[in-house]
């Protein structure tokens, strides 16, 4: 089994983070652009920026996570890779699990780094910044799972992109409520709940995604 995991993970990383499928810098630049433009949109009111900045970072992180949605699963389905893996007895669940991990590695840690300059632009102080970073650490695996799950569900469909937007909202709301909510209440419990939701999503994604890939194959 380990003989399978390493090649798959290396391939996924080369494709997602190595720029073989789209630009890996795009989510990062998008994230920074939002942080840069937001102060211009609401005006240079420092207390207001500091109060809303954490939430903006969260929304930007969420949207950055779903930027590569259309190339997470669909190309492998079209190129017949999933068929070839199935013939070799490699479960779709394993492939999707590895894909979630690779997707998170390609945007999670870079985003947490980019949150540092973003917080400076938004005038967020030290305490809040620490909570934003902790929250992102807890929440981004869930965002990665949502991204891969939606990509798998919509991979075989025409007009999948429109459906992807609709699917994203209910799945992402709990993460945002507790992740961004922890900034307002100041407690660690919000981050803990965000982490719990994240874990549930990471646990569900391989099975739901695997079933979706099999359904797309039969269709």
């Amino acid at each position, binding site marked *: 089994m380990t*003989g*399978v995991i*390493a*090649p*798959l993970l290396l*391939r996924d990383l*080369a*494709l997602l983070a190595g720029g*073989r*499928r789209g630009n890996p810098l795009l989510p990062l630049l998008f994230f920074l652009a939002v942080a840069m433009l937001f102060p211009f949109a609401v005006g240079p009111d420092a207390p207001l920026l500091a109060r809303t900045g954490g939430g903006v970072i969260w929304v930007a992180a969420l949207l950055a996570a779903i930027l590569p949605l259309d190339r997470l699963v669909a190309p492998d389905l*079209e*190129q*017949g*890779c999933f*068929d*070839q893996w*199935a*013939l*070799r007895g*490699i479960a779709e669940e394993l492939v999707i699990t590895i894909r979630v991990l690779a997707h998170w590695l390609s945007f999670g840690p870079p985003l947490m780094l980019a949150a540092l300059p973003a917080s400076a632009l938004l005038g967020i102080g030290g305490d809040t910044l620490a909570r934003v970073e902790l929250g992102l650490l807890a929440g981004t695996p869930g965002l990665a799972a949502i991204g891969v799950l939606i990509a798998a569900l919509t991979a075989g469909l025409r007009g999948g992109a429109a459906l992807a937007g609709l699917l994203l909202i209910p799945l992402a709301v709990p993460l945002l409520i507790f992740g961004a909510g922890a900034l307002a209440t100041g407690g660690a419990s919000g981050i803990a709940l965000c982490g719990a939701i994240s874990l549930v999503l990471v646990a569900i994604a391989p099975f739901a995604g695997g079933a979706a890939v099999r359904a797309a*194959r*039969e269709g």
Partner: protein
Amino acid sequence: MQACRLAVTDIACQRGDRLLFRGLSFALTSGDALHVAGPNGIGKSSLLRILAGLLRPLAGEVDQGGEIALLDERPALDPHQPLGKALGFWQRLDGPADNEAARLGLAPLRDVPVRFLSTGQKKRAGFARLLGQGAPIWLLDEPLNGLDRDAVTLIETLIGEHCAGGGICIIASHQPIDLPDARRISLGEYQP
């Protein structure tokens, strides 16, 4: 190569609302080759996908013993990667293989991204992946599409060697293929 078998009993296939074929039965053992012929849209590709276990038949049973390799119109190689790297990925999954790339004339193309390869070159790259898998049962969907005369001869030789070595090969093709020992099924006869 280990002994292998592939048998289907009374299978039927439906795609969408259309019944493509029904009542198809055959049994193959080590060394057999089967040419499934028929015009486009008759269900040749669907039959291969049923045999590969990727599609459920509407009725009937598939009994297979032995690993299956499938080659269809998609080479399953990343279009943006150089050919050598794209094939290397499958080699890491399938284990080290003989130097089949050289035999298929792919050695000079190792650094060329897959998306720049011609149809015939992609087909040969798919064959390199197929050979590397080392599976006893080959399912080939239109293997001669886009190949020049020399490549066609080479593919026929490869199939002959595979069967002589105790493998099973099923070729779905509307084109004639020169395999003296191959059985032939015309899928049109099984249309409802």
